[in-house]
């Protein structure tokens, strides 16, 4: 079975969504309220084998009971039994290679069933198989829906390793009913054991009861004694898998979830559609990676489809770009799912380098580690200011920093994120004319590109405009990171070998014959000497930002300020423009 399309109207946070799927392994990622889990819930309900899942007014979009909830699923690779004429064989439709649905399963199309769940305002669910381009509809029963093989991991994590009625483990048991006789035999043995027990306090109590009963003339008992009620139990729920002496129910959550998944997978012979909410739940990174690896193998081998959500950077890293669907809710009820296009250059690199960016909403692609550090510290600083003013922090606005890897690569990554529907900005050096054309095209794709002054990188831009006290603090940090000797030698080298002593900028200025401009240049150049960079680490970038923050007021009206303010405005959209503005319609040139 394979879910090929999901259409939703008016369900919970989704006023409308239309998602086309052509993958067997699908990982839904997106920001916290992007309605990923609602998508899984919708799949679960339309394919539910349950007779009467409970609906409430809260399941209606905006609590608006004027419209019905409609969830429509297109399922291919149908089980043989459903194709029979007596089942739904005459209710099949066709799915064309271009994704269009047609009324009949014509030769060029894949046969499919279009299952529609409608929930009326009086909360009655109706399941039907419908045919496109017509009013044809006929009911699909719960047992027919069961054959579509949908299950959701984690709804009852312990249920499937018990021999309970309808559990996957019972399904795996040949003959189906071995568990009942085991339970009954166990009951009988226990009953015998109680009868055979050595005389104890229970027997004395029984004797007392018998004596008293005889004085009342209740009955003439032979011998009253303690005994176990005969086992009437047809419930085999208490019978479950053990590892040695240990019941599986007492193991860790991750183990139980994976075991449950493994048993269910094994029991579905005709294929199935498995939904997993937060695959990483309860798993350490290595087991998560192993589980994903196994799931991919299974989806390649069999009629199996797995649709999961994840918030885990580890999972994103372990997946292929094509496995990932980015979910966006536009805040006005429309949810879209964008699969990562497999012809997009370098996508894999973009995702691997910044897995958490996929979990955010506003992606800020930085030139390199220094810029990531500086911006992290600035965001923290702005967050504090805003929180004390009762405004959203960058966590709430979903701003995420990404190391772009420099130059052209940063531009490519920024563009990739923009194409996936993320609002994206980039911060670039301005010392390589070769990338100027690509800057223009990236801006045309919708990315807000920020650059330093011509010829500058961040160290230049900052050292250029800081007051001397600030420059001193920069040098002090460099000495702390690199040692006095290294720093002094590097600066001196950039001053044509002028003799410098100590680490006081004021002294250096005298020794540089008062040429402040040349000294600032030398310091900035020294900061970026290959292999001896002062700040090319995120933590050091953060320290550098501390200097900027300390001299904030003095930097007013400089280009560095306008760049930082531009980035700040990106990270914290005004309340008035948040919502719809958080979502980009990806450009069509992808």
């Amino acid at each position, binding site marked *: 079975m394979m879910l090929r399309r999901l259409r939703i109207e008016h369900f919970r946070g989704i006023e409308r969504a239309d998602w086309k799927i052509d993958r067997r392994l699908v990982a839904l990622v997106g920001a916290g309220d992007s309605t990923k889990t609602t998508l899984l819930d919708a799949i679960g309900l339309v394919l539910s084998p349950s007779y009467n899942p409970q609906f409430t007014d809260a399941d209606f979009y905006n609590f608006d009971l004027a419209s019905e909830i409609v969830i429509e699923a297109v399922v291919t690779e149908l089980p*043989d*039994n459903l*194709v*029979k*004429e*007596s089942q739904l*064989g*005459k*209710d*099949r439709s*066709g799915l064309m290679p271009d994704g269009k649905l*047609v*009324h*009949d*399963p*014509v*030769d060029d199309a894949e*046969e499919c069933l279009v299952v529609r769940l409608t929930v009326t305002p009086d909360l009655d669910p109706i399941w039907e198989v419908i045919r496109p381009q017509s009013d*044809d509809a006929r009911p699909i029963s719960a047992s027919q829906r069961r054959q579509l093989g949908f299950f959701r991991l984690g709804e009852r994590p312990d249920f499937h390793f018990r021999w309970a009625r309808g559990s996957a483990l019972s399904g795996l048991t040949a003959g189906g009913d071995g568990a009942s006789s085991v339970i009954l035999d166990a009951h009988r043995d226990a009953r015998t054991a109680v009868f055979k027990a050595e005389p104890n306090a229970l027997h004395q109590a029984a004797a007392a009861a018998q004596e008293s009963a005889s004085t009342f003339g209740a009955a003439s008992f032979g011998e009253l004694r303690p005994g176990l009620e005969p086992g009437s139990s047809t419930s085999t729920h208490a019978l479950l898998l053990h590892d040695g002496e240990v019941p599986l129910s007492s193991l860790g959550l991750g183990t139980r979830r994976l075991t449950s998944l493994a048993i269910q997978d094994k029991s579905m012979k005709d294929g199935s559609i498995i939904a997993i909410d937060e695959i990483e739940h309860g798993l350490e990174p290595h087991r998560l990676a192993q589980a994903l690896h196994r799931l991919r193998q299974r989806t390649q081998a069999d009629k199996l489809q797995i649709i999961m959500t994840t918030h885990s950077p580890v999972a994103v890293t372990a997946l292929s770009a094509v496995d990932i669907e980015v979910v966006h809710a536009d805040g006005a009820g429309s949810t879209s799912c964008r699969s990562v296009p497999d012809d997009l250059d370098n996508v894999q690199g973009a995702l691997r380098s910044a897995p958490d960016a996929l979990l955010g909403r506003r992606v800020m692609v930085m030139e390199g580690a220094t810029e990531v550090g500086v911006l992290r510290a600035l965001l923290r600083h702005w967050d504090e200011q805003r929180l004390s003013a009762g405004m959203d922090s960058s966590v709430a606005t979903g701003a995420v920093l990404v190391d772009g890897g420099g130059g052209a690569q940063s531009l490519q990554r920024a563009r990739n994120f923009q194409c996936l529907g993320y609002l994206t900005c980039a911060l670039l050096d301005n010392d390589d004319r070769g990338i100027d054309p690509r800057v223009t095209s990236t801006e045309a794709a919708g990315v807000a590109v920020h650059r330093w002054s011509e010829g500058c990188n961040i160290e230049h831009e900052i050292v250029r405009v800081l007051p001397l006290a600030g420059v001193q603090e920069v040098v002090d940090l460099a000495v702390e990171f690199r040692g006095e000797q290294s720093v002094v030698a590097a600066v001196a080298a950039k001053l044509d070998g002028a003799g410098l002593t100590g680490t006081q900028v004021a002294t250096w200025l005298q020794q540089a014959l008062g040429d402040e401009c040349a000294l600032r240049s030398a310091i900035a150049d020294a900061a970026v000497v290959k292999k001896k960079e002062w700040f090319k680490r995120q933590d050091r970038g953060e320290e550098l930002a501390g200097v900027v923050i300390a001299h904030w007021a003095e930097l007013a009206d400089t280009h560095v300020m306008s760049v930082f303010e531009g980035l700040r405005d990106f990270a914290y959209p005004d309340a008035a423009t948040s919502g719809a503005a958080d979502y980009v319609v990806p450009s069509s040139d992808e």
Partner: protein
Amino acid sequence: MNDDPCIEDAVAAVLAVQPCSVTLPAGAGKTELIAASVAEAVHRGGTSLVLTHTHAGVDALRRRMKKFGVMRDRFVVRTIDSWSYDLIAHFPDLAGLAVPTIPDWTRSTEYHLAAARAAGTPAVAKMLRLSYTNLFVDEYHDCVLDQHNLVLSLSGSIPTTVLGDPLQSLLTFGETPPVDWDSDVLPNFPEVVVDHRPRRWEPDHAELGQWLVDIRTELTDGMPISFSGTPVRWVRKSDDRTFVSECMKALGQEGTIAVLGRFRHDCVSAASKLSGRYTVMEALDEKATLAFAAKVDTGSGAAVAHAVVEFAAKCSVGIPTHISSAKRKRLLNGLSFVTRDEDLKPTYEAVVRVREQPTPTTVRTAFELLGDLQGVSIHCREAWNEVSRSLAAAAADGCTVTEALHLARSHTRAAGRQAAARVVSRPLLVKGLEYDHVIILDPTAYGAQELYVALTRGSKSVTVISDSSTLPVARMQAHKKSPTRG
């Protein structure tokens, strides 16, 4: 499952080689063989599709399945037409035909072609393969060529057995001829020969049963049939009313009776002489009724009023004594239409109201009053009821009488008709049906197949009225240009 070694062998033979055809005489247990084969197929883990022609046939097959205790979800019994319509209604693109919600059976040929087309597509072939292990088609001699092509298409996906009897193959005037057994059936469905005996006449009328088997050779080979010294009761035709006394005498017997003529008009004429004791059986597409409905829908007041009286008169005996032909002419010509007889006045007034205001409601009132007149006996009861119900439906639903009539006929097709116990009918309408007693009015009018069908309808007695106890040779009716018959 059953203690009949004969049928067990037949079942084994039928299931051993498929596709195949089986020829069985009337009353030799064809339905029984199908049910037993389906039961055995189920026993082997299979599921069967059984197709036949009439709803009466569907009922009979379902009842027999029940007798054999076949699980309901392991077989499907449908008419070829309804099954085809159902298929193409679901798959208009595969069938290349869009059909209305209510089937239009005048287009049945198109339906069969479309169904055959759909059955050949991979999607439907897959459904058939997954759904059924066996296909049985009953009364195969009644299949027209396009139905035969549909079955051929189905047999590409399901192992198929067709059952029938070329000697019961009747030509319906003006319609597509049925399959030719030698040139159409046998090359595609090789014959499997099974043992059989005339079960329908056992145990009390075995002699009649055997005689009916024996005459098959004479009929096929064009030899004359003689009734002397046979289990058939032969009555010399002394005059045109010989049959009246025979039919009236027969009323004293228990059970159902079919009096068999050849055409509708001679059946109606015979029934009119039998004082309404026998009902004329009508074809499901009888045109006289349709023509009347069309007249009510479109005619002027005078024409409708005249048609109502004429139609009522044709369905019954006795109306002309109350409304003379001169008066009927005055009705048509718009002249005054009155009577002095107080008992007749309500009827006359109702007819005049039709002339003033021809609606289904006024027509129905007049029609019912005509039927209730003193001394009137209705022998075309089926036609009468059909018209009466259609008028009521048209009045209630605001549709035309023709529409109501079509709807009623569709319903009858689906639900099956209520067979009267004593009918005047024709071989074409009673084929596949069974009566206790049969009276044949004029056997010399029949071709060989009609004669065989007529003779084999009675399970207790067969009465033949003719000039001589030996009939002239009855020719096999060749339905096609086939040179082998005739």
